[in-house]
C-alpha cells in the first residue's frame, strides 16, 4: 500500500428512552413480558386509533440535546416515514425529518494522546420503535410481537468527524455517560437500548472531499464496532487500490465471521415519502419548559470530578472509576452523606465492589446494594461489631441480595466476641496445641505469630477482633 488513507466516520445512534410508557400510547415499556400483552389499538395500528405524544419523551430528548450543546427546536414536528414491513403495524413509522427537536450540537471527547476533540451532532430526533418479528422455521411462518412497537427512541446523528475506532468508542462512551447521568436511558449496547450504525468512507490523506460511504448495521458491542470499522476500512481501501469503486450501500456486520455483506444499495433505497403527521400537533417548546429542563440537568462527570477532588480528597484514580457510571457516583455520594467517610466508602467501591462486579459480570448500573446498607456496614466495622473479614463476607451477600448488614450479622451470629475472657481461653488452647510455633516466635520468627492468629480466628469462627487477638497472643507467648 503506497498511499496513506484516512477513515472518515459518522454515527447514527439510537437510544431507547427510559420512560414507563410508550411514546404515543399508555402501554408499558417493561422488557420481557409475554408477546403482545403490552399493546393497545394505538401501538398495533388499529383503524381509527390516534397517537398522543408522551411528554416525558420530549423532556428526555430536550435534556439530551442540552447536554450535547444542541439548539432546541422551538416548533418541532413529527413526520411519517412510510414503508411496508410487518413489524411496523401502521406501515409507517412516526419519526422526525423536517424539524427535529435538537440540531447543531457537539460533544468533546478525549483522544488517545490525552488531547481533546470535538464531534459535531447534526441532529437528535424522536421516533417510535418497531415490533419484533419471530420467524418460526418449524411451522414455516412468521409471528409478530408488538410489545416493543411504540417504545420511544431518540436518534443522535453525528457529523462525519471521527477518524478512528478509538474516537468512535470515546464518542459512544461520552454519549452513554451523558445519557445515563440524565437518567434518560440505561444505554446497554448488548441489550439494544443503545444501537449504533456506522457510516464510513475512506480517502487519501490530504484530500478534502469525502469518499463514497457505506452504512454498517448490527453492531452490538464496542468490540464488534472496532472490528467492523477496521474490516470495512480495509475492504474499501482494497477496492480503491484495485481500481474499483466503493458502492453506497447498507451493509450488515457479521461479528462471528468478522465480515460484512451488502443488505441494500442506494439504487434500491426506498422512497419513504416523508410528510408531516397530521394526527400530531406541532410540538411547541416554551421558554418555561426549556428553563425547567435546563435547571434540572444533573451534575455531569467533569463537574463531579472537580467537586470530588475538592470535597472528598479521594485519589484521582478512584474518582475516575466512581464517576464513570452515574449509579456508582450516586451510591458513593449517598453513602458518604450518611456515614461521612468518603475514603472508606471509596475503598469499598474500589475494592470489593469492583472485584465482585468482575467476577459476576455485573454492570455498575445494575449494582443492587443500597447506600444506606453500605454506610451501615462501614459503621459496624468502625464500632468493631464485626471485623474486616466478616465485613467482606457480609458485603458479598449485600452485593447479591442487598441485605441489611445489621440484621444479617445479628441473624447469623457474626458479631465479634468482645468477651476478653473467652478470647484468652481460646488463645491458651491454641498455645497449648501449637508449642512449636510458640517456640519459633520466641526465637524471633515473626511469621509464626501470623499462624497463631489464624488458628485463633479459626477457633473463634472469625468472630474476634484481630487486633485484640494479636495483642493477647503476643502477651501470652512472651509469658
Amino acid at each position, binding site marked *: 500500500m503506497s498511499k496513506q488513507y484516512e477513515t472518515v466516520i459518522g454515527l447514527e445512534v439510537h437510544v431507547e428512552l427510559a420512560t414507563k410508557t410508550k411514546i404515543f400510547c399508555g402501554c408499558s415499556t417493561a422488557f420481557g413480558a409475554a408477546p403482545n400483552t403490552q399493546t393497545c*389499538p394505538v401501538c398495533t395500528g388499529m383503524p381509527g386509533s390516534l397517537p398522543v405524544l408522551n411528554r416525558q419523551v420530549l423532556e428526555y430528548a430536550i435534556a439530551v440535546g442540552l447536554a450535547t450543546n444542541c439548539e432546541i427546536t422551538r416548533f418541532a414536528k413529527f413526520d411519517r416515514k412510510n414503508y411496508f414491513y410487518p413489524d411496523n403495524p401502521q406501515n409507517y413509522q412516526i419519526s422526525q425529518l423536517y424539524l427535529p427537536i435538537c440540531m447543531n450540537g457537539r460533544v468533546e471527547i478525549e483522544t488517545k494522546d490525552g488531547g481533546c476533540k470535538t464531534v459535531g451532532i447534526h441532529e437528535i430526533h424522536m421516533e417510535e420503535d418497531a415490533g419484533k418479528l419471530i420467524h418460526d422455521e418449524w411451522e414455516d411462518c412468521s409471528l409478530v410481537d408488538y410489545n416493543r412497537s411504540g417504545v420511544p427512541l431518540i436518534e443522535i446523528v453525528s457529523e462525519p468527524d471521527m477518524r478512528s475506532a478509538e474516537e468512535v468508542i470515546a464518542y459512544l462512551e461520552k454519549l452513554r455517560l451523558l445519557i445515563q447521568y440524565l437518567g434518560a436511558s440505561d444505554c446497554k449496547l448488548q441489550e439494544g437500548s443503545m444501537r449504533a450504525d456506522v457510516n464510513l468512507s475512506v480517502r487519501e490523506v490530504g484530500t478534502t472531499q469525502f469518499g463514497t460511504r457505506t452504512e454498517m448495521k448490527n453492531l452490538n458491542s464496542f468490540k464488534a464496532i472496532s472490528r467492523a470499522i477496521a474490516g470495512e476500512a480495509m475492504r474499501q481501501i482494497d477496492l480503491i487500490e484495485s481500481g474499483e469503486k466503493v458502492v453506497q450501500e447498507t451493509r450488515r456486520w457479521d461479528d462471528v465471521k468478522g465480515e460484512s455483506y451488502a443488505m441494500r444499495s442506494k439504487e434500491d433505497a426506498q422512497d419513504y415519502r416523508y*410528510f408531516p403527521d*397530521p394526527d400530531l400537533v406541532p410540538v411547541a417548546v416554551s421558554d418555561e419548559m426549556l428553563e425547567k429542563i435546563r435547571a434540572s440537568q444533573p451534575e455531569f462527570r467533569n463537574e463531579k470530578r472537580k467537586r470530588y477532588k475538592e470535597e472528598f480528597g479521594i485519589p484521582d484514580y478512584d474518582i475516575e472509576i466512581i464517576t464513570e457510571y452515574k449509579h456508582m457516583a450516586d451510591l458513593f455520594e449517598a453513602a458518604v452523606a450518611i456515614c461521612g467517610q468518603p475514603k472508606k466508602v471509596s475503598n469499598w467501591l474500589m475494592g470489593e465492589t469492583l472485584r465482585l462486579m468482575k467476577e459476576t459480570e455485573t454492570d455498575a448500573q445494575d449494582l443492587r446494594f443500597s447506600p444506606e446498607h453500605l454506610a451501615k456496614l462501614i459503621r459496624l466495622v468502625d464500632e468493631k461489631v464485626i471485623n474486616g473479614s466478616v465485613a467482606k463476607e457480609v458485603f458479598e451477600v449485600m452485593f447479591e441480595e442487598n441485605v441489611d448488614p445489621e440484621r444479617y450479622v445479628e441473624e447469623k451470629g457474626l458479631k465479634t466476641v468482645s468477651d476478653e475472657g473467652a478470647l484468652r481461653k481460646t488463645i491458651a488452647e491454641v498455645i497449648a496445641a501449637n508449642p512449636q510455633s510458640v517456640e519459633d516466635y520466641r526465637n524471633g520468627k515473626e511469621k509464626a505469630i501470623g499462624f497463631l492468629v489464624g488458628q485463633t480466628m479459626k477457633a473463634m469462627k472469625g468472630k474476634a477482633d484481630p487486633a485484640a487477638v494479636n495483642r493477647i497472643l503476643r502477651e501470652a507467648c512472651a509469658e
Partner: protein
Amino acid sequence: MKITDMTAVELAAAIRAGQTTAVEAAEAMLDRIRERDPVYHCYVTVDREGALSQARAVQEKIAAGELGGPLAGVPVAVKDNLCTEGLLTTCASRMLQNFVPTYTAEAVVNLQRAGAVILGKTNMDEFAMGSTTETSAYGATKNPWNPAHVPGGSSGGSAAAVAAGECYYALGSDTGGSIRQPAAYCGMVGMKPTYGTVSRYGLIAYGSSLDQIGPLTKDVTDCAAVLETIASYDKKDSTSIRRQDTDFMSALTEDVKGLRIGIPNDYLKEGLEEEVRAAVLQAAEELARSGAVVERFDLSLAEYAIPAYYTIAAAEASSNLERFDGIKYGYRTKEYAGLHNMYKKSRSEGFGEEVKRRIMLGSFVLSSGYYDAYYLKALRVKALIKQAFDAAFARYDVILGPVAPTTAPKLGESLADPIRMYLGDIYTISVNLAGLPGISLPCGKDRQGLPIGLQLIGDCFQEKKLIRTAYTYEKILQAKQEGYRHEQTI
C-alpha cells in the same frame, strides 16, 4: 303524530312524557328498515338484537330518571367508518369485510352516554372516497326522493337513512363535503363542525387534517342537539380542542337582525345549475327580509381549492390506508408467494378502483422529487385559502352559497368521469381546508322534485351563528310551506 314522523328531539320528549318508549321507537325503525332498506340500501349492517337490548336498557334508565337529555332513547344510524365495539365496521370496503373493532369511536360513546340506540352502520363511499356512495363494495345507496338518483356521498347511507325515515338521525364524516353534500341531495340538515370540535378517535381516517364527524338530521334543532352531544375534548385525539361554547341548542333562536351575510361571487359562476342558483339567492333574499345584511363579495382562490384538496387528502389517505395490509386484520388474499406478493395481492383485491386511484395519486405527490412541487405547494394554497376566509370573516358573520353545483345526479353518471365528480366538491372543500364549520340545509326543490341545498359557512368556532341563521331560515321556509317536513315519505 305518529312516532315515525317525529324528529329526534320530539321523540325524546315523547319518551320522557311516557307517550312512547325507546323500545317502541327502535322497533318502529327496525320495521322501517325491513320495509324500505331493500329499496334504498342505506345500511351495511343492521344490529336488530343489539338495538332492542340497548333500547330496553335505555328505557329503564329513562324510567328511573337517570337519563333525560334531548336524545335519550332515540335510535340513530352510524356511518360505517366509525368504530363500534363488537359491531362490524367495514368502511364499505372488501378490505374490512370481517373487521370487528374492540373499541368504540369517542363520538359514538358520547351518543351512548346520552342514551342513543344504535340501529346499525350506514353505507358510504369506500373509505369515504367518493361523492355518490357508489364506490361502496356492498352496492350503491339510492336517493329516497328518487331511487334512480344517488344520495350523494360519502355519507350517502346516513343521509338517505334519515330521509327515508329508517332512523331519526345519523352520524356522518366530512372530509371535503361528505356530510353537507348528501344532506343537500337528500333534503336533510348536515353539519361539519370546526376542526377539532368532535374527537376523531375511532373514526377510520381518510384525510386526517380534514376529517370531522358531524350530524345528519331532519331539522336544525336536531342538528344542534346532536352536535352538542358529540362535541367533546378528548385526550386521545391530539387535534381535539377544549371548547366551552358547545351549548349549541342555546343558539336555536329566530334572529338575524343586523347579521352580515356575504355571498362569494366565486360560488355563483359557471358550472352552477340555474335552479340551484335561483333557490340559493332566494334564500338569501328571505334572510335579508328578516333583517340580515346581505352582500356579494370576491372570496378569491376558490378555483385552487380542488387541486389543493385532492393533493392533501390523497397524500394523507395514501399513508393512512397503508395499515390495511392483510397482516393483522381485514382481507388477505388466498394464495400468495412471499410477503411482497401478499401485500400486493391483498391490497389489489381488497381495495376498489377509486381508493386505488387516490392511493396512487397520494403516493405520487409525496414521492421524492415531487413533494415540494405538489404536496408543499398544496399546503401553501391551503394557508392562503384560510387567509382569504379570515379576510372575509372580518367583514361577514356568515358566508352563504350553494352546497353543490347540481341536485343529485343519476346513478352511474358520476363514476364514468371522476374529474367531473371531483369538481362537484367545489363549494364544500374550502371549508375543510380552512377547518371551518359549515351547515347544509334544504332551500327548495328542482323541477324533478329533488332537494336543493343551501350552505352557510362560519368562522372557526362560530357554529352558533350558523345554527341561528339556519334555524331562522328553516322557520321562514316552514311558514311558507305549511306542514313542510324534511323527511320524504313514500
